[in-house]
């Protein structure tokens, strides 16, 4: 009974997933449970397997072993576009906009051909963040922060229930940072689930309700920000012995 009650709250469950690249064990028997409607953080030193975990979840990599259960279905090894259409969107550590396309086109391109209201929706999203002026600008000409924002807006173009953000605040000025945080807030209010990783500890501790700590491809700690902060293994991973 209690098992199924818990299961309904979990939108994404990663079960004992491992991934090896040649001699490097990027992810080692890692398990995560992401609760619907909450902001969950993944932290850990560089090279601890956070980005690989994101790539495994979104289908860019196939796990060597383990299961990834999304909305009750094992998605391990499915194509990225299939997983995306199941309602999972993501951003990348370095922004990956379509450089030779305009801002407006970057937003409309990912919608299906039958979706007639794409332009209107895109214009509305741009207006919400005060970016209307940029709509006909090539994405490659935007500043880094602007590109991050457009990448965020791209996630609102399709029905994403789970949003994965890979280091969204890295290299972003404080004004942009505020805008990004506002957008995350908006998603949470809409009932979307957010899974993100970042090195900005202050923001992560403030934003996340639950945090997983990675080190050498394994989950070494999990809990509320408070619990994680007080965990001696986390201190060790971050500051060494």
């Amino acid at each position, binding site marked *: 009974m209690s098992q199924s009650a818990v299961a309904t709250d979990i939108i994404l469950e990663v079960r004992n997933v491992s991934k090896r690249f040649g001699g490097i064990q990027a992810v080692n028997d890692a398990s995560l449970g992401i609760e619907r409607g909450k902001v969950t953080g993944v932290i850990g030193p560089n090279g601890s397997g956070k980005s690989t975990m994101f790539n495994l979840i979104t289908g860019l990599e196939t796990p060597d072993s383990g299961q990834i259960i999304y909305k009750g279905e094992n998605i391990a090894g499915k194509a990225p576009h299939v997983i*995306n259409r199941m309602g999972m969107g993501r951003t990348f550590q370095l922004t990956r*906009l379509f450089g030779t396309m305009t801002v407006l086109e970057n937003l409309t391109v990912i919608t299906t051909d039958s979706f007639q209201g794409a332009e209107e929706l895109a214009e509305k999203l741009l207006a919400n963040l005060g970016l209307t002026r940029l709509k006909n600008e090539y994405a490659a000409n935007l500043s880094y922060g602007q590109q991050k924002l457009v990448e965020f807006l791209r996630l609102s173009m399709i029905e994403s229930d789970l949003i994965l953000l890979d280091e969204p605040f890295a290299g972003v000025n404080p004004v942009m940072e505020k805008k990004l945080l506002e957008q995350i807030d908006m998603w949470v209010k809409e009932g979307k689930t957010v899974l993100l990783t970042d090195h900005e500890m202050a923001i992560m501790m403030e934003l996340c309700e639950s945090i997983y700590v990675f080190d050498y491809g394994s989950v070494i700690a999990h809990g509320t920000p408070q619990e994680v902060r007080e965990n001696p293994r986390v201190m060790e991973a971050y500051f060494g012995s």
Partner: protein
Amino acid sequence: MSTSTSPAPDQMHQDELDATAYRLPGWEKYLGWAYLAAFIVAAIVLLWLPMNAKAYTVTLTLTVLLVLTLSTSWNWLSGFAGYTSFATAGFFGIGSYIGALLLYYEKVTWIPAVFLAGAGCFVIALLVGIPTLRLRGPYFAIAMLAFSELSRVIVLSWDSLTLGGNGVYLPILRLQRPGENETFWEEIQRTFHNNQNYYAMLALAAVACIWSYVVGTSRWGLKLLSIRDDEVAAESMGIRTTYVKATTFAGSAIFPGMAGAIYARHVGYIDPVTVFAIIWTIRAITTTIFGGRGTILGPIVGAVVLTLVSEKVWEQDPNLYQVIYGAIIILVVLFMPGGLTSLLQRYNILPRSRRI
């Protein structure tokens, strides 16, 4: 001191937005109508052309239309989606042979033969494209080079069907002579009959142009561009990249296929060396790069300009024009990598519109 002169962060941010904002000129929204007008004028002129032009002019125009068809169709996958393909010669040759052999063995009349050549190339492209389009960039290009070569070798060695290296002679089109007291209507009918290959190529080129406009202005076209810009991001954003690439590749193979069948009938004799020649691919690539990859106008403008220039050069020296093609590729890549259209856009003569 410094705080009073430097703007607040929010103001800085706004300035940043203003500095890069690009506005389309007002007349951009009439581009579609301008194209329609140009298309109709060109169609009337070209339909009328054989009425009182020399055979040389008609053949030269047919060549322009042929190159236009090859470059425009090459552009969909290789310009918009960035997957450089060397398969044009392969499909041109296969289409020529399907069309020519159907006529040679008297299976069908010439118009169905042309359509069957297109259909055959579509099916072959689908079969070849689905596995090879999983390859990226240069690997796909090399696979297509191999495909063209392989097609040539198969046609050459399967001589029980294709007559091998002897080539295929096609039935001669019997030209009608002007009768006495020919009425105007009879003259039109005779012109149409005597220039049926020209009119077929004109129709094919017109369809290619229309299709190019549809691709270039549709969300499908944007999907192709997204594959060129960042295929991994496109996949992660839910775009079915393999499906988009394979169908575009197969759709664009129809055009060199049909063009090949018309060309075969026009020249009356084909052999593997001429119709599978790499120069067909090179012409499609050079023309598109010169005009502008991934644009609607690029391959069309390129076909007209380059074919006429190379014809003039050909008159001087038949071997020189291949050198000219090589030189044009190098110069364009070095000095105007986006081609003519992008150069005009940089100087704000043309708007940065998807309809260009």
